[in-house]
């Protein structure tokens, strides 16, 4: 993975840049000691690291605006950061940049049940948004696996999803409005506590733009009344193909569970060793979660049982208690941790049409043998969002490079199968150089023209999303 050569002039001007920032921000909001900025050298894609010039941690929208105005004036690139949990390197700094972290902006500004929204500062963590309304019987639907740690600003940047988006949609479907600060330091209100834009859908454009169009400091989010209950079933199968066919049949039957999760044998074996969830010994398993009152869940699970029976499952386990439900989810929720125990891993995020599931899984198996690296599959089957985990050893010379190559092959496979490079993690630096597999030059040009509108000098997170060759002339100007 390559980053642009740092601007030596900016590196040399670090003391002046820091001094100017201290003129407009409180003393403790500007960090320039390399021992302290080291904490910001990477995000959750920790294989790639780079120390920034400095880090700023503003407390208000006005401070964000003041800092951006100044950095714009001085021509300093800015890398926005929520909680730093990006798996795509979305908040990885570049050497000549200032990281703008939103962690201190985490207040709840307004809760309105009558109009079903909450307004928060964007540094607030995903789970604590639900935490603010849970006691009154409400929740915020998008639930990325990192929801305990990840921030709403990052969720908006990457248009994050989660396990339950089959029913509730992803971030963009649950976002009503934002306060956006442009690179020039202008504060703009987009959307609000009403539905849909009057003019062009700028909100839809901002969500998922990976911090390249502006810094979101506040967000108005849709909240929902909590369903009366939820219950998962676990269904084990003796082949991936059959499990895939069962998913399609459940969907065709008109049942819309809130989640359909899939794990293959390597993943089942690893999680069993890690957390002893008591999963059956089988090739693949599905976890299907239904919501509603007890009787409604019974009705849905009855239908799912009938459909599954036609596929001769090796096991159909229905949770009879909260404890059993938790055990069904335990292995799935521990999957990444379990893999981390075995080895280093790279987590991919391609999406494929659900109908291509058996083909893609078979082909991943072949590629895994070819490259000599194990791959475990755990993913959101209902919407085709795959998370192949490639196991490698960072201490073995050449392993990391082999892993990157295998990852690229798998993502190309997803695109060939009619899908895309990333379903919910974002492009960042990780998938940046694969963008031309999915997009023609004209497609990328159209997207870059959008950045030209919001950030004409290309200072916001400039080395992300677009292949460096494609963005070179814009970044240089």
């Amino acid at each position, binding site marked *: 993975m390559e980053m642009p050569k740092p601007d030596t002039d900016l590196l040399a001007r670090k003391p002046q840049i820091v001094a100017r920032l201290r003129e407009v921000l409180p003393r403790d909001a500007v960090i320039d000691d390399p021992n302290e900025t080291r904490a910001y050298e990477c995000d959750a894609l920790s294989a790639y690291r780079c120390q920034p010039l400095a880090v700023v941690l503003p407390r208000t929208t006005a401070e964000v605006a003041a800092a951006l105005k100044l950095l714009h004036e001085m021509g300093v690139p800015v890398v926005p950061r929520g909680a730093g949990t990006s798996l795509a390197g979305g908040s990885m700094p570049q050497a000549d940049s200032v990281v703008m972290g939103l962690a201190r902006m985490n207040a709840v500004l307004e809760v309105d049940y009558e109009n079903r929204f909450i307004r928060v500062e964007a540094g607030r963590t995903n789970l604590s948004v639900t935490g603010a309304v849970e006691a009154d019987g409400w929740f915020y639907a998008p639930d990325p696996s990192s929801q305990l740690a990840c921030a709403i600003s990052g969720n908006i940047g990457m248009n994050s999803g989660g396990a339950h988006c089959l029913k509730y949609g992803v971030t963009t*479907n649950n976002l009503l409005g934002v306060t956006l600060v442009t690179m020039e330091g202008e504060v703009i209100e987009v959307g609000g506590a009403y539905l849909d834009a009057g003019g062009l859908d700028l909100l839809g454009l901002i969500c998922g733009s990976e911090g390249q169009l502006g810094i979101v400091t506040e967000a108005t989010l849709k909240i929902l009344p909590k369903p009366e209950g939820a219950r998962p079933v676990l269904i084990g199968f003796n082949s991936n193909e059959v499990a895939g066919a069962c998913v399609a049949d459940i969907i065709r039957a008109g049942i819309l569970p809130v989640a359909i999760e899939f794990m293959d044998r390597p993943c089942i074996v690893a999680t069993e060793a890690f957390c002893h969830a008591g999963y059956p010994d089988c090739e693949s398993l599905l976890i299907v979660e239904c919501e509603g009152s007890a009787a409604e869940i019974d009705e849905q699970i009855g239908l799912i049982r009938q459909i599954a029976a036609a596929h001769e499952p090796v096991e159909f386990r229905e949770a009879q208690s909260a404890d059993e439900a938790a055990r069904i989810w335990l292995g799935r929720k521990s999957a990444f941790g379990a893999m981390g125990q075995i080895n280093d891993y790279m987590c991919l995020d391609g999406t494929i049409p659900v109908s291509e599931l058996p083909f893609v899984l078979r082909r991943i198996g072949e590629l895994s043998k070819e490259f000599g690296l194990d791959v475990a599959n755990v993913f959101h089957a209902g919407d085709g969002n795959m998370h192949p985990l490639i196991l490698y050893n960072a201490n073995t010379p050449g392993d990391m490079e082999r892993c990157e190559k295998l990852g690229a092959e798998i993502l190309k496979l997803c695109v060939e199968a009619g899908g895309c490079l990333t379903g919910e993690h974002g492009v960042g630096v990780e998938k940046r150089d694969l963008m031309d597999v999915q997009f023609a030059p004209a497609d990328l040009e159209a997207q870059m023209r959008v950045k030209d509108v919001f950030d004409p000098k290309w200072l916001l997170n400039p080395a992300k999303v677009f292949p460096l060759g494609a963005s070179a002339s814009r970044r240089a100007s």
Partner: protein
Amino acid sequence: MRVESEAQLAEAIRDAGGALAVRGGGTRPVGRSLGAPLEVGISGITLYEPGALTLVVGAGTPLAEVEAALAAEGQRLPFEPANWGGVLGVSGESTVGGVVAANVSGPRRVQAGACRDSLIGVRFVDGRGTVIKNGGRVMKNVTGYDLVKLMAGSWGTLGVMSEVAFKLLPAAPAQTTLVLDLPAGAAQPALAAALGSPFDVSGAGWLPGQGAVVRIEGLSESVEYRVGRLEALLAPFGPVRIERDAASAAIWASLRDLEPFIGKPGDLWRLSVKPSEAPGIVARLGGEVMLDWGGGLIWALLPEGSDARALAAPYSGHATCMRGSAGVVFEPEPAPIAALSASLRAQFDPRGILNPGRMG
């Protein structure tokens, strides 16, 4: 001119000597229409996978054709697109591209999202005549910027769509509507109570001749259960009448297509607002109204020449003059938003030939 392929569409735009008035079926004559007519007749279902809940379709395909194909598999477009032809006084066949260009969402918007939320991919030709694709045919996709959302509701001013892809939902086997005999100005608190319940309400509005209406859809036993719970919840607002299946469906078709307003004189306004503001706005507007989206969408039939924005103020959100003589059709935007929008149009359509002035 009528184009029937993407290549023809690209050529027509490249060769255009001046403004083009882009249209699908011509059923949404909202805003100014200047220039030589360009009708998008790129028609037909490219791909339909019921097991993956996805559909890819030519932008000029009649909406009715799409809905029939989906109904045959027990599925539907989640956002319940409206037919405004009747109330806007035009004939013609609504196309899916037109639905997307206007981001038309019906009553189920409160539960299943807007048209733009179901739209997962587009192919379009920009003002230079370049073919551009964005999104795809899978329902989770964050690869690059979301130009799919930008195209929805852009009224053909950024590019002309040749193909669109949707995620779908299973059609509900049963539906029931709870009806409360309340005046329009008193409906919103009851609708908010229903939408704030865990019973997955899929429609909440008010229409003349009925009153406040709340819809439940799903598997039949589940619908019965939730209707029972909602009946108790809504009892404090007044007596509740129950309408099932076909009778229930008729209520929502009437609200969706604004049937009570068809053939009536006056200016038709559409206001998207914070729902709790609805009672005040309804009182200030006077005239006849219909409510959807729990009060968040107000349709108002006002005397000719009325300025609904002045009458309704203060409100958050936006008002559009759908039919009438008002000078400003779309809500004027704050300066920074207007500047960004103008700049986006200049990037996508540098010659300013695609539906110029359509959105004001």
